């Protein structure tokens, strides 16, 4: 039972991270389209933000891994 709940929790965390990273990516693409000169800066900041969003999801996944 806890295993199933943990799996659902991990899934929810992934949905959250997916939405978050999707937003980061779409905004970054838009920004690059508006300002192609700043593509390099935007790209590294995009990866940084994606990594931060991902970090939150990973904590949830690791926790559910230990619970389940």
């Amino acid at each position, binding site marked *: 039972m806890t295993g199933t709940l943990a799996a659902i929790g991990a899934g929810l965390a992934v949905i959250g991270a997916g939405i978050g990273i999707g937003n980061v990516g779409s905004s970054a693409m838009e920004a690059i389209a508006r300002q192609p000169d700043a593509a390099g800066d935007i790209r*590294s900041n995009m*990866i*940084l933000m994606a*990594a*931060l969003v991902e*970090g*939150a999801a*990973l*904590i949830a996944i*690791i926790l559910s891994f230990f619970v389940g």
Partner: protein
Amino acid sequence: MNKILICLFSFLLMSIAVVAQDHGDDSHGAETEHAEEGEHHEGGCHCHDASKDEFDPGETAFHHIMDANAFHVYGDIYIPLPCMLYAPEHGWSFFLSNKFELHSHGDGHKAIDGYVMHHGEVMRVKDASFPKGEVAVECFGVRDGEDDKEIFQVIYKDECYDLDKKSTWDGGMLGGGITSYYDFSVTKNVFTMLLSLVLLFLLFRSVAKAYVTRAGKAPKGIQSLIETIFVFIRDEVAIPFLGPKYEKYLPFLMSIFFFILGLNLIGQIPFFPGSGNVTGNLAVTMVLALFAFLVTNLSGNRNYWAHIFWMPGVPAWVKTILTPVEVMGLVIKPLTLMLRLFANITAGHIVIIIFVSLIFVFGDAGESIGGSILGGFIAVPLTLFMMSIELLVAFIQAFVFCILTASYIGAAIEEHHHEAEHH
């Protein structure tokens, strides 16, 4: 077209080699019907014959991502690694792991000074009545201990002996806590780390030499490759985040980046010198994160500590909330560094193994040739796709670790000129 076919075919062979490493003799485990219980022994313990189990992709993947005391090549062929073991009541033991006479699934036929090899890991019999020196053991079993933990057992002369896992300093969270012995062996992970250190040393020495001998000329050969990456990290990571004092931290950032990148890439190789899941090991990423934590906090200036303990420019009641959050942030930042690298690399290894396992799942563990071929046609493109993604991930994760470390250090050494700027 021919080239593509050859590529696909060799890739298929390579991928199968990986599963064969963990999978051992499962493929001819046909006698599942009359092998449910295994051999019974007195004292209520029985052999767990893994070669008669059904093929379990999850377990195979789990074994693959674990550290091991020998390199599995194929079937019963192992590349031995040195074992250095210390038990307080026995002293040191040094030997090569082929002394265990390994066979399928990383189980050893022999016990040496009370040490046995099970699932590729050295374990120790705690019981003092177990004979020292080299003795032949029959097989391995498992029983349920307290807290739903599995306790492995070795069966020697119809008697069961509980096995201790190696000591870990995590209080039993991931391993066994402090047990009856310590393992200082050169394991698969240690070997891979040493290999990557040697490769990086040779690589960078030759590049550094080239800058002296070819001073003033355009870079050539491997120099061009390293210079591109080096300049990229310097211009995209170090300078924007660290500002004018970047040179002091550049060696640290570069070491972290190339070390992680090297380990990630070596882990991608599915056979002997590779296949070690080093950056997917919590202990390794923890040490890397610990270094990031120490460098950040030891180089933190007055502003940095003031912003953590007494954030200037906010009302006093907000400070009472902010201070605990900031103090927690001190630990959470390296914690996420550690988990991110660990989870990404481990997930990549697991997914690849699961995809390759499709061949064995469809093929009923070697029973049905048609199923295997169908599984192969599904598994190869998926694995190929995943491997290329993982190649990207190897770079991205090394880069992310580096860029986040740089941003933490940058926040710690930043000089605040005006009060309005808060982070």
